[in-house]
């Protein structure tokens, strides 16, 4: 265990210069250190700085880990990053808690009691992987690899490539769940319907006006700090106007120029009414009208711009501001005022997120937002709503011979749950397993995900995961013992992100791609292993080596294979600097206007689809012949979007809005025949949530939100963060509270069709009447001492405790939120739950 070492050698290693003072730097500093360096406050020694990347939230900001005496002591932003400019949020800085959580799992574990009983035994990695690979291999050998269901929460860049595209693809299962439907799946589906490949970047650097529907960008968001710090600067330095529609006075709403309270789930009515104002008052003229050339608002593609204008006016005529006022509670005058502002303050950036889309027909809300941005000429322009730009890494592909993957049809929800779930309905995977009609996996493995806690209908999730008839064998890959890990058969101790490798590629709000990597700050504690490395090991054990030695090697190869990164100096450069962008690169805007060179569409195999005007390569779409391609047509050929070349408009072939997941044209499709074919409105329109229509006078709508110091489900084990935020009393408007005799601090019961919770109340005008708002993050009953108070003996959760002074842990709202899906996209309807709220008996 301890090896004798030559003390004299250690002494000899001390540079003589240091003893004589020759190594001292000049006393006069050029200026304050603004990042990239850190010093021990006790010894004054410079700490080891390791460029890396965050993983707390999906934004994955470039970071620097500081190590002192082999210990991760601090994380801060990477000042070289063009995405963050060195800014890092509290969650990112609090990430040191992922490393130092005293309740971390350090060894593989196997349950020895009943599932969920909490009785465990340490096992070796060999025991664990022999058992898992043995079971997996059996399924593969029997020709049923799909019975291995892999369900992840976050898996990006090299992790996704190595685990999903190499390991799982070579294994052969396509039963791979994600968690996009509990995030913002409705946005992505809507974007795929309209402008193709998903993700909208908001160019706040150049904007003069921001109109926000339900994004809490200053506290959360999938590109949180990269956008938020720019937006704050723009607001404070340029004094631009920002209007936020939200049911709650979030910190984003509070920092906006104006907060417009709105009834939950009614943003679309307001957006449609604004579109009505823009069209009826001819405010589209100028950029909006010019952009219509690239927009489809009618069936077919022969409409002139005038015909398009007429079609839009006709469609929007019924959605007047007065109509929207009756639905949303926002006055018609206010709707008109803001519609005029957003149409005339150019460029304007129209933004949206879960507050707007995590509803019934939430995808249609996003389509409406796309419409408003289009007719005001604010699409993919400086200062507008832009097509995302991110790093394009190249990766090793692993074994050439990969089987055709097989999958259980359990990923898209219960029958009739969603018509176009392009990002799946993974929050219903457990329900589908229970249902059994599409088969059940023999092995359910989850990674960086907590299916019990993160989804709605928690009790059902627990019941299903516990049931060995439904799930014969389960494996949790997790550094921490959360509510889901507690129900696993085997726990594999993953490394927290502070101890692993990875490439990263998140969208750049600068519209210039940024390449960055994650490096371990320290070697993995205990026996923790990066799951990507474990996959390589599993493949070896099953007899199909991936040809990759480690995740580190995979990252190294990616650095050498990616031309931009290789030119910068490859792996060594990235290890030293962490982040790279081409200093000569110009921000990318108006990408749809790029003209395709004739050699791209005049070559063999490429044909023009007369119905859509799309040039497509039928060979790439695996069609047998040109005749068949022309006969079938682009739209009706399976996955023809992958063969898209360009869009012909007025005799010119543009790159257009390249499709993804759907065989749409290269137009911005505000009118979608594909959507229409699913018995949905071809253009965005209004369909109320059925539960809201049926609400009784005393019913309220439950809405949820995130705070600035916690991520959704996986940060409450970080002490610094939970010390700041560990309780989530329900917000209720004073008028709503008074109707129920509720006062500040009361205990209340909140009932829905899925159950009842008890929680405390905060009476505040910062939430609209008729609504109750409960934050995520809290109410853990596992996840270690900081999160749950289910403490180890050394951490008594009492005021007398030295390290955990808080005694409340809040209430998890998901017990009473359904796993209902947006019938269009499959998005989980977080904000639609109808509840009854009463003062609890003890407080009555």
């Amino acid at each position, binding site marked *: 265990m*301890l090896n*004798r070492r030559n003390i004299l050698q250690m002494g000899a290693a001390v540079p003589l210069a240091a003893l004589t003072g020759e190594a001292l730097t000049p006393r006069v500093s050029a200026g304050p250190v603004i990042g990239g360096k850190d010093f021990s406050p006790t010894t004054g020694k410079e700490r080891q700085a390791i460029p890396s990347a965050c993983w707390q939230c999906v934004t994955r900001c470039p970071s620097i880990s500081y190590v002192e005496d*082999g210990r991760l002591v601090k994380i801060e932003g990477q000042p070289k990053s063009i995405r963050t400019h060195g800014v890092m949020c509290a969650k990112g800085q609090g990430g040191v*808690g992922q490393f130092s*959580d*005293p309740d971390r799992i350090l*060894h593989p574990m196997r349950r*020895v009691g009943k599932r969920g009983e909490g009785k*465990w035994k*340490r096992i070796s990695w060999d025991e664990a992987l022999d058992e898992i690979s043995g079971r997996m291999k059996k399924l593969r050998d029997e020709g049923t690899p799909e019975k291995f269901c892999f369900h992840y929460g976050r898996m990006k860049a090299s992790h996704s490539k190595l685990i999903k595209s190499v390991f799982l693809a070579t294994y052969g299962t396509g039963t791979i769940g994600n968690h996009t439907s509990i995030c913002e799946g409705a946005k992505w589906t809507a974007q795929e319907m309209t402008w193709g490949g998903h993700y909208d970047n908001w160019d706040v650097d150049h904007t003069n006006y921001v109109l926000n529907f339900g994004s809490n960008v200053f506290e959360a968001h999938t590109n949180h700090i990269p956008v938020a710090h720019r937006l704050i600067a723009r607001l404070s330095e340029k004094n631009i106007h920002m209007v936020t529609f939200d049911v709650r006075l979030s910190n984003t709403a509070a920092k906006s120029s104006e907060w417009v309270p709105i009834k939950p789930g009614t943003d679309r009515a307001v957006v449609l009414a604004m579109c009505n104002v823009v069209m009826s008052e001819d405010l589209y003229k100028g950029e909006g009208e010019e952009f219509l050339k690239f927009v489809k608002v009618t069936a077919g593609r022969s409409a002139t711009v005038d015909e398009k204008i007429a079609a839009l006016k006709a469609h929007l005529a019924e959605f007047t501001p007065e109509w929207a006022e009756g639905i949303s509670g926002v006055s018609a005058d206010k709707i008109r005022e803001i519609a005029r502002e957003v149409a005339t303050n150019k460029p304007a950036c129209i933004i949206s997120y879960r507050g707007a889309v995590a509803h019934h027909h939430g995808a249609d809300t996003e389509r409406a937002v796309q419409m408003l941005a289009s007719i005001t000429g604010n699409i993919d322009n400086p200062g507008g709503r832009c097509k995302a730009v991110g790093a394009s890494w190249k990766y090793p592909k692993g074994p050439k011979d990969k089987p055709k993957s097989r999958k259980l049809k359990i990923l898209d929800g219960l029958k009739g749950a969603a018509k176009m779930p392009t990002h799946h309905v993974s929050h219903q995977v457990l329900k589908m397993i229970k249902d059994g009609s599409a088969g059940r996996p023999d092995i359910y493995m989850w990674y960086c995900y907590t299916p019990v806690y993160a989804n709605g209908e928690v009790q059902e999730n627990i019941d299903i995961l516990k049931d060995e008839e439904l799930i014969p064998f389960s494996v949790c890959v997790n550094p921490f013992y959360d509510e889901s890990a507690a129900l696993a058969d085997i726990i594999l101790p993953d490394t927290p992100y502070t101890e692993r490798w990875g490439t990263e590629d998140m969208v750049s709000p600068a519209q210039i791609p940024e390449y960055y990597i994650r490096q371990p700050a320290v070697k993995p504690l205990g026996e923790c292993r990066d799951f990507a490395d474990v996959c390589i090991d599993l493949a070896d054990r099953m007899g199909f080596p991936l040809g990759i030695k480690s995740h580190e090697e995979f990252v190294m190869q990616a650095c050498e294979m990616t031309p931009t990164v290789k030119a910068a100096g490859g792996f060594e450069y990235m290890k030293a600097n962490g982040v790279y962008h081409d200093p000569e690169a110009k921000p990318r805007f108006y990408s749809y206007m790029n003209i395709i060179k004739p050699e791209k569409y005049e070559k063999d195999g490429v044909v023009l689809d007369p119905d859509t005007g799309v040039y497509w390569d039928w060979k790439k779409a695996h069609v047998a012949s040109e005749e068949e391609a022309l006969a079938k047509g682009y739209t009706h050929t399976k996955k023809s979007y992958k063969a898209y070349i360009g869009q012909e408009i007025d005799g010119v072939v543009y790159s257009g809005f390249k499709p993804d997941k759907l065989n749409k044209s290269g137009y911005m499709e505000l009118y979608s025949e594909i959507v229409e074919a699913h018995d949905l409105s071809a253009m965005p329109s209004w369909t109320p949530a059925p539960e809201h229509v049926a609400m009784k006078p005393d019913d309220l709508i439950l809405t949820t939100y995130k705070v600035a110091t916690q991520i959704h489900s996986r940060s409450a084990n970080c002490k610094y963060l939970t010390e700041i935020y560990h309780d989530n009393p329900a917000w209720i408007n004073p008028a709503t509270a008074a109707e129920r005799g509720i006062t500040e601090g009361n205990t209340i019961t909140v009932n829905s069709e899925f159950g009842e919770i008890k929680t405390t109340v905060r009476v505040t005008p910062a939430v609209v009447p008729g609504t109750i708002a409960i934050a995520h993050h809290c109410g853990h009953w596992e996840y270690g001492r900081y999160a749950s108070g289910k403490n180890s003996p050394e951490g008594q959760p009492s005021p007398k405790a030295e390290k955990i002074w808080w005694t409340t842990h809040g209430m998890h709202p998901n017990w009473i939120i359904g796993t209902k899906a947006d019938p269009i996209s499959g998005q989980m309807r977080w904000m639609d739950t109808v509840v009854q709220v009463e003062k609890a008996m003890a407080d009555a």
Partner: protein
Amino acid sequence: MLETKAIIHHDELAKKAIEQSRLYGLLATVFRREPSTEFLCHLRTPELIVALTGVGIDFGKEFGTRTFADIADELAIEYTRLFLGPGKHISPHESVQLKRGSGILWGPETSAVQQSYRAAGFEIGEGETDIPDHLSVELDFLSLLTKEESQCWTNRDHEQTARILNLQRAFISGHLGKWVAIFCTKVKEEAEFGFYPAFAGLLLSYLSGEKMEIGIRASLVGRPEQNGANGPDTTYGTEDSARRA
């Protein structure tokens, strides 16, 4: 108790130090990982039964007539529940246990422990997965120091003997001695079987007197030795610890 006025034969001190080293080693093994059947079998050898009974530990009743494999299985679950989790457990790490300490894994206390190892000329092995301030690593360190002490007594290397004793004293007073009582008390409270409380009791009892014993040994460094029939006038080491227990 060692008689300071006695004139001790250093070979005897060397022998006692080896015994101490073995005791530390045994305790390190106990708290490092779950007991194997071989380990349990070894505990039941007549020689060890006598030794353990001498310090008040008798596993006869607890082990009963069950097989060592069954006992090992039960103790593996007990070990996991007590010291590993997942979930509620008694972290065997100084940084987590230390009163008014950081309370976190790999905290500043861990760095200080690692510094102590380095100052003594030791480094954590490359393949070691236990964190430096894990109880078993700290006990291993003391086992190695006492082994070194034994060699020093044998070699009559007074300077090195004094240094090694100082290292022991500093480590016990600066680290292990500061948190082991808290840890052992929790083990006694939380354990379902008698196995770990027994060894926790042994550890606590032994260490509680060790600081003073080190002082006494240090006072003997460089003093003339007495040979002959009278022999060394001392009881010291494992037996003495047992008596203190």
